[in-house]
């Protein structure tokens, strides 16, 4: 007798090992917090070096992006992220990794059609919808608020 789709869904869930929810949440909480603490630390360092607040707001994200790009290039980032999960994915570090990793992967297909064309294959949707949303909110802000 054929097994129905719903029954198979139940069988599948019963035989598929679940993700380690609690462990993943804890790792994401700790590592995400660590990234933020690092950002704060860098901010304080730049302040001590005499950077103005406006400059620090530029320098801190740039430093984190540079660090993630460097760790990605060195092949360390993916090993950290395999444990850290969303803690490294959600902050700006995840975005840097999402651009650098395909850029590296597709370098074997050339500078233009490889690295150039493929580097936004993961980050592309964020850029497209992020820009569109920003434009939309800009128009709404202009019409309603001002």
């Amino acid at each position, binding site marked *: 007798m054929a097994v129905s789709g719903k029954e198979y869904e139940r069988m599948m869930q019963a035989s*598929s090992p679940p993700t380690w929810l609690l462990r993943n949440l804890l790792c994401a909480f700790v590592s995400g917090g660590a990234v933020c603490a690092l950002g704060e630390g860098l901010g304080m360092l730049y302040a001590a070096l005499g950077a103005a607040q406006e400059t620090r707001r530029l320098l801190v994200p740039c430093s984190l992006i540079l660090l993630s790009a460097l760790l990605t290039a060195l092949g360390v980032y993916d090993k950290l992220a395999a444990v850290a999960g969303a803690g490294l994915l959600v902050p700006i570090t995840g975005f840097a990794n999402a651009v650098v990793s395909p850029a590296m992967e597709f370098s074997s297909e050339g500078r233009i059609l490889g690295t150039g064309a493929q580097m936004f294959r993961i980050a592309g949707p964020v850029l497209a919808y992020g820009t569109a949303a920003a434009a939309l909110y800009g128009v709404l802000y202009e019409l309603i608020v001002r």
Partner: protein
Amino acid sequence: MPERIGARTLRLDAVVTGGAAVGGKTEAEGPLGRQLDAVYPEADAGEKSWEKAESTLHADALTRAIAKAGLTPQQIDLHFGGDLLDQCIGTSFAARPLGMPLVGLYGACSTMALALAMAALAVDCGAAQAAAASTSSHFCAAEKQFRMPLEYGGQRTPTAQWTATAAGAAVLRKQGRGPHVRAISIGRICDYGVKDANNMGAAMAPAACDTIAAFLHDTGTQPADYDCILTGDLGAVGSTLLLQLAQKEAGLALASVHRDCGLLLYDLKTQTKVGAGGSGC
């Protein structure tokens, strides 16, 4: 000549007179590592791209299989081969220097079984004196084409499987020494609505069950008649589901004879990175 028996099965006779398998580092460290004819410790196999590396493994397995069958590429009348890369480039670049008439196959995880079936058919009906069957897959090339870049910081789900960096080839003839292909059943698409791309075993188990049940029915045999009923790469999740489905849908008890190549290739306890088992073409 092939003879159709039942609705799904062809009875025929062909002999695998030579075969070879090569693999990468993770495969060599697995339980079957010592059976490999050659091991490639470096993922790039000395090439500039993962695709070229896969092609290198494919060509190596193919030439070794032909040599072990005591033949030259010129004596192979038909070559059935495939892989999962775009336009089967793993296969076509491997076949380029050998000059054998090539039939490209794109059967995903069933490619090797499909190639063996086609080669057996060709040999049995006299379309070829000798036919080659080959396939390959490469972890890095598969991740690049179907999933995420290697350096991308994502997490693998527990049901995800590990694409084998390996290639296999066989040469089939009408007569000779070696294991025989006695009957073949070609599988159907069985879609039970699995949408999780990281649970391929669950997606494939219904088709495996359907094919095994059809084969046993058409040949009038029982699971106990076989030393082993092998599936390709259902992995841990898919294998569990296959056993349950076979019991529920066809009343077949497969547990004592069923083995899955994806589970044989790696040691899931020590090689934990492979997740729910291996996969490949």
